[in-house]
C-alpha cells in the first residue's frame, strides 16, 4: 500500500527494511546516530538532516557514529564490504569527497577489475548534493559527473520519494559499489511510496511524461523543474517527453535514444557544473547515436561555470529553473535549419 511520505522518510524506510531483512547491512557516518560519548540523548541527530534517525535503537550495534575521518570510515565501509558486510556509509555532503575520493575511486571502484574479477564490494555511499539551501560553494555541489566518469562505480540520483526508496534498496542489494546521491532540497518533498519493500533496477530510465515534440532528459531535482516547464510548454501546444535516467551509471541510453528518434529534439537539464557533466555526456551520446533523427541543436540547461554562490539572490539565478528549460525547449522546437 502506498502512502504519502517524504523523500527523507523514504530513505529511512529503505534502510530500516533492508537492515531488518539482512543482518549484514550496517550504517555508518558522522552523527548517524549522534551523541557518541555525550551525556545526553544517544540518537540525538540521526545524521545532520535526520535521515537515519531512529535506526540506532531499532538495530543495536549496527548504526555506527564515526570521527570526522572520511577516508578512514569510507575505507572501512569498503573493507567491510569485501568481508561479508553490506555497509551503507554516509558522506554527509558530496562536497566532502575531496578528502576521501581515493578510497572510492582507486580502491572500491577498481578492486574487481584489478583483481581479475575476484572481488565483490557491495558498499553504498549515501551522500547529499545540490544547491538551494544557501549552503554556499563547499556544501552545494552536484559532483555526480565525477563519479559517473569512474569505471567501476554505479551512480544513482533519485528524483522523488518513490525512486529514493526503490533505488536505495536496489543499491544495498547490489554487488557493486554504489554512490547514492540525495538532493538536500528534496528531503521535505513528499510522494506516494509503497510500504512494502521494492526495488527499482539500475539502468532503467523512467519516462515521467510522454510527449512527441521534444525530449527533455533531467537529472535528480531537475526532473521536477522539467515537469514545471512541460506544463507551461503544454500551454504553448508543445508536448514534451520527460526522461529521468534515475541512474547515471549505468545509463539507460536506449530509452533516451528512442525518445529522440521520435521527437528529433533534445534538451538536457543538469544541475551540475557545465563542463564534462551529464548534460554533455547525454548530448554527446545522442549526437553520435541518433544524429540522423536530430532536427535541431541539442540544448543544455545547466548552471554557469562558477562555484555555487551563497546569497539567495545569486543562488536562485544560479540553479536552472523552469523558465530556462522552457526557453531551451521552445528554441529547439522552433529551430529551422
Amino acid at each position: 500500500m502506498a502512502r504519502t511520505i517524504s523523500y527523507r522518510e523514504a530513505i529511512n524506510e529503505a534502510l530500516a527494511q533492508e537492515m531488518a531483512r539482512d543482518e549484514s547491512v550496517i550504517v555508518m557516518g558522522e552523527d548517524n546516530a549522534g551523541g557518541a560519548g555525550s551525556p545526553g540523548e544517544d540518537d540525538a541527530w540521526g545524521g545532520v538532516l535526520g535521515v537515519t534517525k531512529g535506526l540506532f535503537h531499532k538495530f543495536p550495534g549496527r548504526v555506527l557514529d564515526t570521527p570526522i575521518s572520511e577516508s578512514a570510515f569510507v575505507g572501512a565501509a569498503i573493507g567491510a564490504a569485501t568481508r561479508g558486510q553490506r555497509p551503507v556509509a554516509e558522506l554527509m555532503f558530496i562536497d566532502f569527497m575531496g578528502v576521501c575520493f581515493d578510497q572510492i575511486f582507486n580502491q572500491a571502484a577498481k578492486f574487481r577489475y584489478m583483481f581479475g574479477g575476484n572481488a565483490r564490494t557491495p558498499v553504498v555511499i549515501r551522500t547529499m548534493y545540490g544547491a538551494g539551501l544557501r549552503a554556499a560553494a563547499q556544501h552545494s555541489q552536484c559532483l555526480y559527473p565525477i563519479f559517473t566518469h569512474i569505471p567501476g562505480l554505479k551512480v544513482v540520483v533519485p528524483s522523488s520519494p518513490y525512486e529514493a526508496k526503490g533505488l536505495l534498496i536496489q543499491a544495498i542489494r547490489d554487488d557493486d559499489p554504489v554512490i547514492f546521491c540525495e538532493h538536500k532540497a528534496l528531503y521535505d518533498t513528499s510522494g506516494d511510496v509503497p510500504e512494502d519493500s521494492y526495488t527499482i533496477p539500475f539502468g532503467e530510465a523512467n519516462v515521467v511524461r510522454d510527449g512527441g515534440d521534444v525530449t527533455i532528459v533531467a537529472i535528480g531535482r531537475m526532473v521536477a523543474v522539467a515537469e514545471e516547464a512541460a506544463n507551461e510548454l503544454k500551454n504553448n501546444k508543445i508536448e514534451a517527453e520527460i526522461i529521468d535516467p534515475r541512474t547515471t551509471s549505468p545509463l539507460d541510453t536506449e530509452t533516451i535514444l528512442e525518445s529522440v528518434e521520435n521527437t528529433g529534439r533534445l534538451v538536457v537539464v543538469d544541475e551540475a557544473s557545465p563542463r564534462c557533466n551529464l548534460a554533455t555526456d547525454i548530448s554527446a551520446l545522442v549526437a553520435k547515436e541518433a544524429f540522423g533523427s536530430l532536427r535541431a541543436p541539442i540544448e543544455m540547461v545547466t548552471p554557469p561555470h562558477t562555484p555555487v554562490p551563497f546569497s539567495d539572490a545569486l543562488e536562485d539565478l544560479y540553479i536552472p529553473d523552469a523558465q530556462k528549460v522552457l526557453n531551451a525547449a521552445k528554441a529547439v522546437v522552433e529551430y529551422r535549419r
Partner: protein
Amino acid sequence: MTDTLREAYRLMRTIRAFEERVHEEFATGEIPGFVHLYAGEEASATGVCLHLDDRDAIASTHRGHGHCIAKGVDVKGMMAEIYGRRTGSCHGKGGSMHIADLSKGMLGANGIVGGGPPLICGTALAAKQQNTGGVGVAFFGDGASNQGTTLEALNLASVWDLPAVFVAENNGYAEATSSSWSVASDNIADRAAGFGMPGVIVDGFDFFAVHEAAGEAIERARDGGGPTLIEVKFTRYFGHFEGDQQTYRAGEVADARENLDCLKRFRTRVTEAGELAEQVLDAIDAEVAKLIEDAVTEAKAAPKPTKEDLETDVYVSY
C-alpha cells in the same frame, strides 16, 4: 599593557555581542544558510590573535566569526555577508562559512573540516621564504583533529620546520559527537609528540592562559623554533549550528556561562587587579553594542548582489 587589555576585552565583547545577535536574528528566519556560533570561545581567537600582525596569517573553520573579528576583519562587512548582501566581506558570495579578508591575513572561514591546517603550512612557508618573521596559525576543532589533512599538516610543519602554530579548539563536541569519544587519546595535545613538536593544554575560558601559551608558541615560531600544538579546552554556548536542539548535552553550558565565562573572568580579574576600571569596560560594552546594532541595521538595508555579479570573480582572467 592596559591597551592590550582594553583591546582584548573589546575583541572578546565584540565577538560575544556579534554572536548573540546573530543567534537572535537567525531565529527570525532572515539569515540564510548554515551558521555556527563562536560564543563561549572568545578567549581563544583573542588570546592568539592579539600576538599577530600583518606578517601573519590565520586559517579558520566553519565556526569562523570569532577568528575573523580577532584578526581585524570589518564587523559590518561580516554582518552584511552573513545576510548575503553585496556590501558583505565577500559581496554576498561566501556567507558565514567563507568570510575572509586576505588583506588582513585572514584566509577564510572554511566549510571543510580540516581544510585550514594545510593552507597554514603554506602561509608559514611563505613567511619563511620571504624572511618576514611572520607566522601562520591554524585554528581547528576537536573534530578536525581526526581529519587526515590536519594530521599531515602537523607533520609537514615539523619536517619543514615552519613558523606555524596549530590551535586545537576542543569545545567538547563535533556536532553531537563528544571529543572524549572521537579523539582516541586523552588530549589532542598528546598527538604533538608523534609529530615532533611541543603540545600544550590551556583553559580556554581563561584569556590570560591562552594569551600566554600562544605568546610563547608564536615567539618560538618567529625565532625559528618550529611549530607548536596548543589545545584550548572549553565549551561552545550555542548548538553546533543554529537550529541544533542539543539533546546530546547536559548542563555544561549553563555552568560554563555562570562560572567559567571568559568575559566575566576577565572583568573580575582586571578590575580586582586595578588594571582596568569597570567604567572603561562598560564603555566598551556600549560602544560594541552600538557597532553591532549599526551592523545589523546596515546589513538589512543593504542591496543584494544581482545578475551582473553571478559570473564574476571566478578567475583573475579566463
